[in-house]
């Protein structure tokens, strides 16, 4: 078991192996991602019942909640990849961290903007400086900071290290976001989905939400693969296997 894990780890560290295996994996993530997101969107927009308090504006939940969950778990993954780079010097981990940053920032932006637009008809205001919204905005700035640091230093190694350290420090913000609706008074409603208890949502509203969350995660995986593959090509451009790959393209 340990040996198998070790073997997997060493393979994951090989850019060539990743490039080849990810080409085979990509359609298995991209196609289901599209299917889940289309089904979830149509179901959530046209078939789920309206909320008895909020009416139809609640349908924004089908993008707001998946985007917010993903923005946070993407951040945690980026920090873990950064830690792997810091501890074991695995280059692939640094490239994955750099791939995650702009994608996570995008989802964080989606969560913030849809939250603001949802807030207008529901709370009567686009924005309040309460704990949930402020900590989420801080997450977006942390993403920007990590992205800037990943390009800021003289060498790629120090840039990746600086980005990794900031992403690890920023990790304290994640539990703050999660518990902000419980620790402080807020306009923001408490979590709809709970892992340990029954969710507060009716089944015919909940199922499309779960479908959307799966769809967002699949899209996220697809985007990481695409960006990391580009990174592999760039960093290995002087290696024979990439040269051969380019040669095939040149003859076309």
């Amino acid at each position, binding site marked *: 078991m340990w040996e198998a894990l070790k073997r997997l780890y060493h393979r994951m560290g090989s850019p060539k192996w990743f490039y080849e295996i990810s080409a085979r994996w990509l359609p298995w993530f991209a196609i289901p991602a599209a299917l889940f997101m289309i089904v979830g969107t149509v179901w959530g927009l046209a*078939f789920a019942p309206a909320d008895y308090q909020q009416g*139809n504006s609640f349908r924004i939940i089908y993008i707001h909640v998946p985007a917010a969950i993903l923005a946070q778990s993407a951040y945690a993954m980026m920090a873990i990849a950064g830690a792997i780079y810091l501890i074991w010097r695995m280059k692939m981990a640094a490239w994955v961290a750099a791939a995650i940053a702009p994608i996570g920032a995008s989802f964080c932006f989606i969560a913030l903007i849809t939250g603001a637009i949802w807030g207008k008809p529901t709370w009567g205001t686009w924005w309040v400086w309460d704990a949930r919204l402020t900590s989420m905005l801080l997450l977006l700035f942390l993403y920007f900071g990590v992205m800037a640091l990943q390009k800021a230093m003289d060498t790629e190694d120090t840039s990746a290290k600086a980005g990794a350290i900031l992403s690890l420090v920023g990790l304290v913000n994640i539990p703050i976001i999660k518990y902000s609706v419980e620790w402080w008074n807020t306009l923001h409603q408490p979590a709809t989905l709970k892992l340990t208890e029954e969710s507060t949502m009716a089944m015919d509203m909940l199922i499309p939400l779960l479908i959307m969350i799966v769809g967002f995660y699949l899209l996220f995986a697809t985007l990481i693969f695409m960006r990391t593959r580009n990174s592999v090509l760039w960093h290995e451009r002087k290696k024979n296997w990439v040269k051969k790959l380019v040669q095939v*393209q040149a003859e076309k």
Partner: protein
Amino acid sequence: MFFDSFAEFLAMGKHGFYVWLCYGITALVIIANILAPIRQRKKLIEQQVRLQRREKKNASEA
């Protein structure tokens, strides 16, 4: 279908503007995120193809 007509679906009660604005922005951000790595990959390969051609030419002239 929850709505009785397509017009009602578009109107979303009184919340059509908010709902469609959210879905529109999200669609744009996702499309941009898909296109960016595709374009980058194209650029990268074109650049390497050009480099290889130049190297080949230089080698044959030398």
